[in-house]
């Protein structure tokens, strides 16, 4: 079930939170699990039993990893940990490489569970002894399908005991509405421009239209995923958890490296903590650092998808980051003001195009069009003007929103009554938009 579906907004939220509110404190996690299960079963039923089964196994593995220290025990623990980590990754790889689709939420789930096992193995936290709390941690519906990837220690105390109430509920609901508006009013609307580039065919676009398309894709992706993360954080707060922030105004970054510290933050942290640092990070000299970066980015590409373009995407970003490392050693580079932003937008837009187009031949055509190389077919020279006329305003609004002023206003005034009115109106506006789309699953796509 999508957060931005009528089913979720009009039925699941009221019914679930009614039950949740009347559940005695000691049993709230049970209600949350039941609700999450219902939520999960409304989605794709493709191998839906994989996650519950995996939770059961990993619960026992977690406890096994915790047994008291000792040289003999330590070796056993190491073997168990490696087996469990490889096993979890093998399940993920199996579905990614050889099956038609993934069980819902498996990518995010796998990373959460590996982080849990690693944290327990390294003694950073005790294993969870309550199966109820364990399943709540991994399976709660706010973060089940698309994160944010949350480490177990951050939630440990709240799983045991947390405050819920009208104040927290409303605070969370506000964040949820904020995210819903980003997704429904911005992402879906901006996406139309990208859809137009696609339906025109990449070989027939002007270079300006190609860049507009890339920009619209970048904005669509951002508000989609950022909006989704905000909704998740909001829902998390509504049930009493503080889930970590996932985006920190990435488009304001001054380098690709910086961008990926602000984009999908929890994934970046995961890679840093469980891949980059264990490999030695940047402490073993320049050559090793570059190797480690390659490893991290290839893995990141693979995590996003198994087609060749994701590999190229990871490679491209990795090369950009390495280039940035080298260039940053030149003294005057640090004093530049505008150039770093231009560099960022230039490289990131190209990287999103690589991300967006799975067919490498088509991708090549698109990149060629962006730089005006190759022979275009049946180009309409004013295609970019037509696109600007129809989508220019919403695109400008999108870029403006990516600068973070709305977030500031939201933080500053979210407890004011007028902000309450604005958000309540926004919510019902979103519902209206979704309703107007009717049975058409692509909300705004009209033919």
């Amino acid at each position, binding site marked *: 079930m999508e957060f931005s579906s*009528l089913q979720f907004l*009009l*039925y699941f939220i009221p019914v679930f939170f009614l039950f949740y509110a009347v559940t005695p404190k000691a049993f709230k996690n049970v209600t949350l699990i039941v609700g999450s299960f219902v939520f999960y079963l409304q989605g794709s039923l493709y191998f839906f039993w994989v996650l519950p089964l995996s939770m059961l196994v990993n619960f026992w593995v977690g406890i096994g990893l915790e047994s008291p220290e000792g040289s003999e025990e330590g070796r056993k623990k190491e073997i168990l940990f490696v087996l469990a980590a490889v096993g979890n990754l093998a399940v993920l790889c199996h579905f990614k490489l050889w099956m038609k689709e993934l069980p819902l939420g498996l990518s995010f789930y796998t990373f959460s569970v590996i982080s849990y096992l690693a944290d327990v193995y390294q003694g950073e936290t005790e294993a969870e002894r309550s199966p109820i709390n364990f399943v709540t941690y991994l399976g709660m519906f706010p973060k089940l399908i698309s994160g944010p990837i949350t480490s177990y220690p951050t939630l440990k105390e709240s799983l045991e005991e947390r405050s819920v109430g*009208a*104040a927290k*509920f*409303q605070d969370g*609901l*506000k964040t949820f509405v904020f995210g819903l508006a980003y997704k429904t009013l911005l992402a879906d609307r901006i996406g139309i421009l990208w*859809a137009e580039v*696609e*339906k*025109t*065919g990449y*070989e*027939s*676009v002007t270079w300006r239209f190609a860049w507009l398309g890339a920009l619209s894709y970048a904005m669509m992706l951002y508000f989609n995923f950022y909006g989704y993360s905000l909704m998740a954080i909001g829902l998390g707060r509504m049930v009493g958890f503080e889930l970590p922030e996932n985006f920190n105004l990435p488009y304001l970054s001054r380098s690709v490296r910086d961008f990926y510290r602000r984009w999908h933050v929890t994934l970046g942290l995961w890679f840093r903590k469980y891949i980059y640092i264990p490999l030695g990070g940047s402490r073993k000299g320049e050559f090793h650092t570059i190797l480690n970066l390659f490893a991290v980015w290839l893995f990141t590409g693979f995590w996003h998808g198994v087609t060749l373009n994701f590999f190229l995407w990871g490679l491209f970003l990795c090369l950009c980051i390495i280039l940035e490392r080298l260039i940053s050693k030149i003294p005057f580079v640090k004093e530049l003001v505008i150039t770093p932003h231009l560099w960022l937008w230039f490289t990131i837009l190209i990287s999103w195009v690589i991300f967006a187009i799975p067919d490498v031949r088509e991708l090549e055509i698109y990149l060629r069009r962006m730089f005006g190389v190759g022979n275009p*077919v*049946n*180009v*309409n020279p004013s*295609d970019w003007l*037509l696109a600007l006329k129809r989508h220019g305003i919403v695109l400008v609004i999108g870029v403006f929103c990516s600068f973070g002023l709305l977030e500031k206003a939201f933080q500053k005034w979210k407890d004011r*009554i007028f902000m*309450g*009115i604005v*958000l*309540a*109106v926004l*919510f*019902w506006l979103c*519902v*209206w938009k979704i*309703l*107007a789309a*009717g*049975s*058409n*699953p692509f909300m705004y796509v*009209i*033919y």
Partner: protein
Amino acid sequence: MKENQGFWRRNHFIILFFLLGCVFFTGARRWDLYVDPAMQVGARISSFLALETFAWDGNTQMAGEIAGPGEARVPDDGFEEEEFGQFAEGDPDGGEQGGTLPEGGEGDLPGGEVDSQNAPEGSQSEFKTVELDYFDDALFIGDSRVVGLRDYGKFEDHGTFYAHEGLNIFRLLNQRIVEVPGQRRKITVEDALSQNQFAKIYIMVGINELDIGTQEGFIETYKERLSRIQELQPDAKIIIMSIMLVTEKRSRKGDFISNKKLIERNEALKELADGERIFYLDVNEAITDESGGMNPTYTSDGIHLKAKYVPLWTEWLKTHVIE
């Protein structure tokens, strides 16, 4: 009093939220979103209580029956019921038997055997071939596919286009889509047709409204629109272009778009041609392949021709002019 104020301050958001929700459901007349499921649940419970002794199977069946005809629920969209209520009754979409293309429909799509013997239904004339200037006094009305024809059909300055994404037969004449030079506000096709005269009017709509109302409602409305256009353009030849099919893959996707439905509509559209002033052109000849649907190489989304292939359509129109 003070406590009350505190309560309001603390809970103003949720209160506003609910109040606006009530306003929304009342204003949009969509309380059915809650009433219908509640009725269904109610019916289920009451049937359960009444028929406690029955087997489980019997119970669910009864519940379905009670909820079904009693509430007369419109399957998807309430607004359809309001706007196009007259068509919402009866058999939705003319029956849903069988998943694949009906035999007749397939036979109706001559894959490759395009020639002038394939003259339009009800017309004695043969096709002839023309140059682009033939379209100087022609008008094209349609949805996004016709927008594609306008932008990539290589018509240059020939022909006039009243086309807009999402245009459907119901809004064909009263949606403001026609730009007037020197005027900010667009005008409706109806107004534009009473100001300008054309010799030929090509129309293609019908995919956006596939999930609105019924087949009969669509055809009825199409007929009404045609006669209104005839009133406004007494000298024009009206050419109904068949609704362009989608690729077989897109058709199987399982949403409201399917070639089966499109072929049914096209069959009925063919009947609207009188061979004198209204003609039917099966443009699918230009873009379908042996699968029966749109040739997948011509499109990236399965619905729209890519710019590269839109000229196929233009060329086909040039060789299929009705005398």
